[in-house]
């Protein structure tokens, strides 16, 4: 894990090669994160993977979080790992929720990291984030005919109401 000054050095180097790609950095509880422009996220991942001295060549996790009611709403998180130095760095791309029924879009990184295939499908399955360029973006865990994106914060929890003593009068 790069420390806070190390993270700023990485940010400076990316800024030199890819101006405007990194929007901010975050160093919290010893975990380094780069908040990047969603349009250039593939550039940043490529840079972190291929630049000598960085070589974060393993994508240990790709996941999405819903930060509702914050804006932009969706955070796509890439957890990168350098297995020689056992260093981790997190790349976050924040996506706004488009108007209407449109889904948020971000470029797929399956070309860079083949392991992202299933993880992007899972993120699509539960959050409805579209990974543009993914070879087969279909539901992976939920039934194929499922409607909705159940891990979004505005999705109803589901199940059935249960009558307990404290809410008995609501269902009586």
């Amino acid at each position, binding site marked *: 894990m790069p420390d806070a000054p190390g993270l700023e050095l990485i940010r400076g180097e990316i800024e030199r090669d890819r101006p405007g790609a990194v929007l901010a950095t975050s160093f919290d509880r010893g975990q380094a994160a780069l908040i990047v422009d969603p349009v250039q996220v593939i550039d940043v991942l490529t840079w972190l993977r291929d630049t000598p001295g960085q070589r974060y060549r393993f994508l240990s996790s790709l996941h999405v979080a819903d930060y509702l009611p914050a804006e932009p709403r969706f955070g796509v998180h890439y957890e990168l790992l350098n297995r020689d130095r056992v260093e981790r760095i997190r790349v976050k791309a924040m996506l706004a929720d488009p108007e209407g029924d449109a889904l948020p879009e971000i470029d797929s990184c399956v070309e860079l990291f083949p392991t992202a295939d299933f993880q992007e499908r899972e993120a699509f399955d539960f959050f409805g984030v579209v990974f543009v360029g993914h070879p087969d973006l279909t539901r992976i865990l939920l039934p194929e005919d499922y409607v909705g994106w159940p891990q979004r914060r505005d999705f109803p929890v589901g199940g059935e109401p249960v009558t307990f003593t404290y809410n008995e009068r609501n*269902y009586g």
Partner: protein
Amino acid sequence: MEVERRTLAAKQRSARDMLRGDLEGEDLDRYVEERVVTTTFEKMLNLARSNSIFPLTFGLACCAIEAPISIVTARYDLARFGAEALRASPRQADLIILSGRVSIKMAPVVRRLYDQMLEPKWAISMGACSSSGGMFSNYAVVQGADKFMPIDLHVPGCPPRPEAVMYGFTKLQRKIQGNPDQGWRQRYNAAGTEEWARGGPASTPSPEAAEAYLAARELSLA
């Protein structure tokens, strides 16, 4: 004809005479009375069925450790009740134990397995999850397996102990024999006090449920 009780030694003597062909007249009548039980074919068939159940080798979640795995081991040994032969194909099985939560993706598969089983067939819903959804009150889990298939018996617990499953199994056997237990309502003479979850405390049951409960009440009062 009143049959007087005889000692085992006397019975053995008469059996020996019978085999030798020496038993005649009243002695022969008594011999037959002692050894032959008359019943209906239905009852005999149900007795045979209830003591030769083939459960399906089938596990859904954590309850599977307790039910299909533990109860056939030497410590619990379902073979004592005549159900030691677990079948790996639904076409050979006549009991399915839903051991765990049924997700909405798994429900069509479970239903298909149940449909493939040959009649007569029975289903036990084991544990809180498959009976009511349990702790998983969410978008992914079916809230009670009887929403998509008929269930004969619910075993409560999270998970139920293997002993509880076997107790439920013996209850199922009594049900197959046509003499189902009515539970605490029978013990406390409380048939007709059922509450109906669908519409709250003051509501009435559906016509089918009312009919079934009347039948059950007659059984429990008989």
